[in-house]
């Protein structure tokens, strides 16, 4: 039960205040302002407990969103509501900032009335809210379906015929996190993925989505020959954990492992998932650090692209940390552009585009300033960021069937678009150290300050 929801600007002025329960009033608003927004030290914890009231806050640009409660409620639930609130607001007025909040305050109050009822979360989908909340022109017919939607049977969908063509867009968006040891062992890897859909379908369609998950029963139905089955099985993906949009019929998933749903109109996030097995690493980095003497260090980084040559990665950027007593850097690289950024103590090596199976190398000679006291400095790992046009988890959409009972449009009439997009999360490789003779060492011993 959220007691109240407040939006502050950066100076601590209250832009929006909606209180749902007794006991959360102006003094709570002030208490949060004084202890969190105006606090001298930056407040790191997103949850603050002030005199019997808990505050949960997030920041977007120069705007603070805070929820307050006097009860012991699930913090994750509150944050989910706050993040949903942000999504909804961006959906309604593109960007959250002080001006937009001020401009749309009537709308926001309307939204808050629908999102939470007596402090309990009700509707968090932008599309369904669009039906509930008046935006500029009024619509009469919505009252009829209102009660229907309240019961949650067909979320955010009305029986409409308005699209000239029936279209459906599916985006598979993934981000890869990696930590690799100097010897190339994977210490930690995982992929966080989302399947986002955009539906422009008439009527009340039922969709059925097939993915290459290992326990996918739908696979067996379509499989004919042993040969393909083996090949397919190779390419299946093991999902550690996934969650679905409320429109997905969980019963069907539990029994038949098929994803059956009636999509809401417009854009929505169908599912989220996380995997950590059989991840295809798009890039392999091999960094070497060799100390020549007390005042000279040589760093060499090799990058290998590990995907089909027909694909191209974009916005590839590799950040190579330099010792803190660097006094000069000479860089040579075969491809791309490399630059020493003194303000962040890194060498940044960039490619606009790089095709699959390419190998490239960058080396840097670093001059060091001898330090008064020698302190151990452990080089942070080399990190990189990229975007690739495939799903590193190996996730594939096998099919999507659309069936509409009333309009009964043919399967072929539906135009389907699928896009895969992978990008880096925290993608790091630790350096291996060589001594003067090129032998591998466990730890560096050049003198730097930490």
């Amino acid at each position: 039960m959220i007691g109240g929801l407040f939006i502050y600007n950066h100076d601590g002025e209250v832009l929006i205040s909606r209180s749902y329960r007794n006991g959360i009033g102006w003094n709570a608003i002030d208490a949060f302002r004084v202890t969190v927004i105006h606090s001298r030290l930056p407040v790191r914890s997103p949850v603050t407990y002030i005199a019997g009231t808990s505050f949960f806050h997030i920041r977007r640009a120069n705007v603070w969103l805070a929820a307050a409660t006097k009860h012991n409620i699930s913090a994750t639930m509150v944050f989910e509501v706050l993040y949903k609130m942000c999504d909804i607001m961006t959906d309604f007025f593109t960007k959250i900032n002080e001006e937009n909040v001020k401009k749309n305050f009537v709308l926001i109050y309307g939204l808050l009335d629908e999102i939470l009822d007596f402090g309990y979360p009700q509707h968090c989908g932008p599309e369904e809210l669009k039906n509930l909340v008046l935006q500029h022109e009024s619509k009469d017919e919505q009252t009829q379906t209102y009660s229907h939607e309240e019961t949650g049977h067909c979320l955010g969908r009305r029986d409409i015929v308005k699209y000239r063509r029936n279209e459906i867009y599916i985006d598979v968006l993934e981000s890869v996190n990696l930590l690799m040891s100097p010897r190339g062992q994977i210490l930690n890897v995982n992929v966080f993925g989302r399947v986002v859909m955009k539906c422009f379908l008439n009527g009340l369609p039922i969709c059925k989505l097939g993915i290459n998950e290992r326990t996918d029963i739908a696979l067996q139905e379509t499989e004919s020959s042993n040969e393909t089955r083996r090949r397919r099985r190779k390419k299946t993906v093991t999902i550690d954990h996934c969650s679905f949009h409320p429109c997905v019929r969980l019963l069907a998933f539990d029994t038949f492992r098929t994803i059956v749903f009636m999509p809401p109109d417009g854009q929505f996030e169908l599912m989220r998932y996380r995997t950590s097995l059989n991840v295809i690493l798009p890039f392999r980095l091999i960094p070497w650090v060799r100390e020549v003497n007390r005042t000279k260090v040589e760093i060499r980084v090799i990058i290998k692209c590990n995907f089909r040559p027909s694909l191209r990665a974009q916005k590839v950027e590799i950040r190579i940390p330099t010792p803190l007593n660097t006094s000069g850097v000479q860089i040579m690289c075969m491809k791309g552009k490399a630059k020493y950024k003194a303000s962040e103590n890194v060498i940044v090596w960039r490619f606009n585009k790089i095709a699959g199976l390419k190998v490239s190398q960058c080396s840097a000679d670093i001059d060091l300033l001898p330090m008064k006291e020698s302190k151990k400095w452990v080089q942070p790992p080399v990190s990189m960021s990229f975007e690739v046009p495939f799903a590193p988890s190996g996730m594939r959409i096998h099919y999507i069937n659309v069936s509409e009972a009333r309009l009964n449009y043919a399967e072929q009439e539906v135009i389907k678009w699928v896009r895969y997009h992978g990008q880096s999360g925290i993608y790091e490789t630790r350096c291996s150290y060589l001594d003067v003779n090129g032998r591998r060492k466990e730890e560096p011993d050049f003198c730097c300050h930490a």
Partner: protein
Amino acid sequence: MPAVSKGDGMRGLAVFISDIRNCKSKEAEIKRINKELANIRSKFKGDKALDGYSKKKYVCKLLFIFLLGHDIDFGHMEAVNLLSSNKYTEKQIGYLFISVLVNSNSELIRLINNAIKNDLASRNPTFMCLALHCIANVGSREMAEAFAGEIPRILVAGDTMDSVKQSAALCLLRLYKTSPDLVHMGEWTSRVVHLLNDQHMGVVTAAISLITCLSQKNPEEFKTCISLAVSRLSRIVSSASTDLQDYTYYFVPAPWLSVKLLRLLQCYPPPEDGAVKGRLVECLETILNKAQEPPKSKKVQHSNAKNAILFEAISLIIHYDSEPNLLVRACNQLGQFLQHRETNLRYLALESMCTLASSEFSHEAVKTHIETVINALKTERDVSVRQRAADLLYAMCDRSNAKQIVAEMLSYLETADYSIREEIVLKVAILAEKYAVDYSWYVDTILNLIRIAGDYVSEEVWYRVIQIVINRDDVQGYAAKTVFEALQAPACHENMVKVGGYILGEFGNLIAGDPRSSPLVQFNLLHSKFHLCSVPTRALLLSAYIKFINLFPETKSTIQEVLRSDSQIRNSDVELQQRAVEYLKLSSIASTDVLATVLEEMPPFPERESSILAKLKKKKGPGAVSVSELEDGKKEAGSEINGGGGAESAAAASNASTPSPSADLLGLRSGAAGIGSATGAGSLLVDVFSESGTAATASSGTDENFLRDLDLPTESSDSLLVDSALASDSTPSSALGSEDPAPALPESDELLHKFVCKNNGVLFENHLLQIGIKSEYRQNLGRMYLFFGNKTSMQFIGFSTTVTCPGELQSQLNIQTKPVEPLVEGGAQVQQVLNIECLSDFTEAPLLNIRFRYGGTLQNITLKLPITINKFFQPTEMASQDFFQRWKQLSQPQQEAQKIFKATHPMDSEVLKGKLLGLGTALLENVDPNPENFVCAGVIQTKALQVGCLLRLEPNAQAQMYRLTLRSSKESVSKRLCELVAEQF
């Protein structure tokens, strides 16, 4: 940015700083700093040499970055290079960097010292000043080692500029404070003292700080400064306000210098030379006169400066404590301030008066202000001032006004601040006790105290009431009556219930005659409070009930009923339950005679230092109370003031080492007499009291000059410690201080017998030391481990142990030891190994002497080491006939030793067996026809010979007697063994 001349302006630095200031976020600032650091690194690394200007600029930037809170690990070398520059600004930046960033153990310090040396030798005053400032700022030991010899020379050299002299004096002061052992004034002393005559006031001001500090350490060497200081002071005081030009501050001539001069004079007793003294008195009078003059300016700075001098003069007067005229004038002056508008002045006046009150000359004068002070206590808005007022009331209290003051304090207590309530409660309790004319007043006061501020009455206070009531017969009846009346209030504090329970339990019979306070009424009154009290109080009440049964047999059935109720006898608290059960049984089983013996009236408490006073001292720290207490002690010593405290004075008089038998109710004197035994840290203050001469000046000195105290807090407390240590050393009563080993403890024989049958255990234990033993023997050799454990938290100094073999034992026993560590840390344990060789049989035990210093007192303990002849037993197994054959062989009368003795321990055969085995002999089963008897055999191994021994022990269970027979081939062995073994059963 302030306008800077072109040559000095560092544009790069200004740009950098404004960049940093313009940074929107912390991250942006760090980025900018990283960029700048990279830039500076590349510049310092660069192949071409930097010119002085850019070096200065970059060092400045590094300094700025450091001050922003980032680590700087380079640039030190460049800063040191700047020192050798000839430009003032570059040198200045170099020194600045070094004094901020270079830590004292850097390897660069040698280079820096060299540069400083060059500057000191340069004869350029600005460079010399820079160097001196750097030395003072770093102030490390290395600096002191390098320059402590140099600086006095600069200070007294004739051709040194005034500004350099000032810097040199202050620099030397700093070095002296960090490492006093390295600064030797020696031959410079007189020339430094003569700096007081310097023309330049700045030099005098700087020098006087140095001299004050130095003279506190060695007053004798700097004694000559008194007359110089007095003449200087009189010149300043008598000068017209315009004479001193730059050093006149708001019409007051040289206030800082005057204050420092007055403070310097406080390091010394009054000058002996009449002329000097006359001049000084004249000065002080002038200062007091000036305070009466109308102010020359309305500015607050004028009055502040004037009052600063005045207060310092007053504390000097108090310090001298010899000019009644001046003291009274000072007191009057302070009296005027008591009603001043300024809160600070009122505070200071009260505080100074507190010390004035302890002087015998001005005590009466202070007492005239009692009304004002009481008024201040009641109406003052500032709590700290009220606190001082309470302190002053406490200090000015004596027999004549005690009643008034205690009454005022009690009435103030009802409205007093929570923070000072406890202290006031303690003060009231002490005053009431100290100046009690009649004890009914005392009892009334304390009971009032408990009633008004029960929560703040600590345990010590009500313990003390009970102690006094019990020790004084004449007040017991009154106390019982008052307590009874006080308890009748519907709500009374738990402390009151405690006092009530105790007193009625002891002396309820004294008021039982009155039908209104008949035994049953008393009991019902107490029991009505029972359920509201905490567990310890209930336990106390239960004890009071059982005492009631003894005092009034008619209440027995009622009380037994109460004890028998489930809420008592089945109480969940173990203590209460146990008491209820035991008291119930005691009351029902024991006869009245037994009951009367068990529950006899408590014997008088031994006199000791008032626990309340100790508590107050603990609260305020040493010094705060000690002055007034001391003065009280002084005044009361010899004169019988406190209305015939029979028991106390008797106790005090019986204590031979008491300097003067006094009837001090607080038992200060008897506390001081117990100095020899008092070793804990808590008794330090008591020790100080005993040294009424030197310690008095020491403690009053520290008290009055609390400002100086702030400068050197450790020193003054050190001196207190040293004093007390000396005091306890020099006291004749501390016989333990002598160097001869003390005679063996009387209980050491007993300790010895404890170890006849066992090899390991605790040999000795007192409140300081524990000695554990672990030993093993093989044939005629043995090894003993001694463990000395320090049970205190303080270290033992000079810890040493010696083992001696008295008399002929030297030829019988050979003991080798290694010396132990002389320092035993608090809570630590040291180990010592003894190697023992038995040459021939022996009877005596070797002596172990332990000596160490604990808290200044020498401890000297002598013990007997548990090495007995039986330790060298080798068990011998033999059959029945063998035994009797040998038994018969040893049938000569001198070979046998027999003893018949009564059992001291229960006759348990298992225990007996264990003991006999512990003896080292073999226990022979099935040898003696009577299975009750024990038979043992063994051979004692010495280097010279082996002695076979046979033992027979015949217990007689009915008579609880033993017969012990020992036969051995040597007479002395038989006898000694017989003695040893007989002690064991």
